[in-house]
């Protein structure tokens, strides 16, 4: 074990110890001790509820993610390639970026009901802008000579798009998607606090109403785990696609 590992281990044990000491004098319902959390973990994992909650949140996340990603890619490429972005269409689209996704929750419930679709839309909204803007920025920096090379061979517009523009923008699509996924993750939990009957966010709210702080903390740990896994997955995909990025001048 090297010094760095030793240090982080000491910090971890120190924090656990501090938590343990602090929880001695606290109300166990509000501030549970580490041992209580341990039993809460066992309680959660001995039942299937957490699986259904996870599936229901992740499903919303993934459905909404693609619902936002696909139009962002299409619009981003089209607008990025036609320099419409400085026009009224591009500007009005960009101004929508400042509508916080959570501000849409009450509106979506009113328009599309309390069901799944309104949640997909909120996630889609969250994912759309980081991807869209990342593509636009990348399009602006694109070297037109790469397109010229393709045109010199007589490439059609479709060939230029598929063989040059799309592969060039692929890494920025993934990095935008990574940012979008992170945001969507926080938004879905908040969106489930109101108007949902399943999901990790819904369950958190429920546990709060029955004073089970220990279970709330277990669910927060679950959120950390899912967020980490999803982000690492997208990072892996990005690195695989962007192998040529850093070193190429």
């Amino acid at each position, binding site marked *: 074990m090297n010094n760095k590992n030793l240090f982080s281990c000491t910090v971890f044990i120190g924090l656990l110890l501090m938590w343990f000491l602090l929880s001695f004098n606290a109300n166990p319902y509000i501030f549970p001790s580490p041992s209580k959390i341990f039993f809460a973990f066992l309680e959660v994992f001995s039942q299937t509820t957490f699986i259904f909650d996870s599936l229901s949140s992740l499903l919303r996340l993934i459905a909404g993610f693609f619902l936002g990603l696909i139009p962002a890619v299409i619009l981003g490429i089209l607008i990025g390639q036609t320099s419409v972005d400085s026009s009224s269409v591009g500007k009005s689209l960009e101004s929508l970026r400042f509508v916080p996704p959570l501000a849409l929750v009450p509106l979506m419930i009113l328009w599309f009901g309390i069901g799944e679709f309104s949640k997909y839309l909120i996630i889609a909204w969250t994912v759309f802008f980081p991807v869209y803007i990342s593509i636009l920025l990348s399009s602006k920096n694109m070297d037109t000579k790469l397109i010229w090379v393709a045109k*010199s061979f007589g490439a059609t517009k479709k060939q230029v798009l598929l063989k040059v523009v799309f592969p*060039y923008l692929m890494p920025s699509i993934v990095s935008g998607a990574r940012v979008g996924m992170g945001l969507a993750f926080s938004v879905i939990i908040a969106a489930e606090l109101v108007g949902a009957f399943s999901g990790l966010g819904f369950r958190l709210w429920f546990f709060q109403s029955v004073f089970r702080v220990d279970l709330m903390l277990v669910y927060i740990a679950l959120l950390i785990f899912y967020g980490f896994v999803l982000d690492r997955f997208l990072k892996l995909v990005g690195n695989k696609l962007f192998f040529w990025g850093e070193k190429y001048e």
Partner: protein
Amino acid sequence: MNNEIEIKELTKDYFTNKKKIKAIDNISFNVKSGDFVSVVGPSGCGKSTLLNCIAGFVKQSSGKINFIKDNGSIGVVFQNRELFPWLNVSENIAFGLDVQNSAKTKKIVNRLIKKMDLGGFEESYPFELSIGMQQRVGLARALATNPRLLLMDEPFGSVDYLTRIKLQELLMHIWESLKPTIIFVTHDIDEAIFLGETIFVMSKRPGKILKEIKVDLPRPRTTKTLTSKKFNQIKKEVLEILVNNKF
């Protein structure tokens, strides 16, 4: 020899911050089929713009560019190689053939890899290659579709002296064996003379053709050509035109 391209009264203006900049001013010249034309001039004189107009990448403001035999594709080679960074060497060379749905892609790519001395690097990506090698890939990609016209924009501008001579010899060998029409833009007078059959000397901006010079140096040209008396005579002529161009 027949004319390959006829350029008549070509003018190109650019607009930056509502200011009009004349890049090319009323240029007329013909390029013969199979000729090796060097265009030499100071930086920013509009020689790249001229090339981009001929390639059709930018539209001229006025004037005409006539291609006499309008068949076959063109090949372009840029100073910064402009290789597709996500494609490896073979895939980069095959790019134009793929665009044109060629059935002989594999055969042609293999032949070019051998010719350009890129064996063993088929699977390498551009960022893994030296600049000289990248430029050989760029040249191979342009040659793959067997273009009748090769447009080259300072292709050897960013390589060291020795690599440059090797690339020049390679290009000369290709021209002598395949005889495509080449328009080669450079600011290097030595390079223009060493490679070209015809030299067009361009003025400072707005670009005009100051003189057309026939280079009657014997072929094959070698490094000895670079120090010959005739070579220096032509160099002196070009230099005098460029230095005396004061507007």
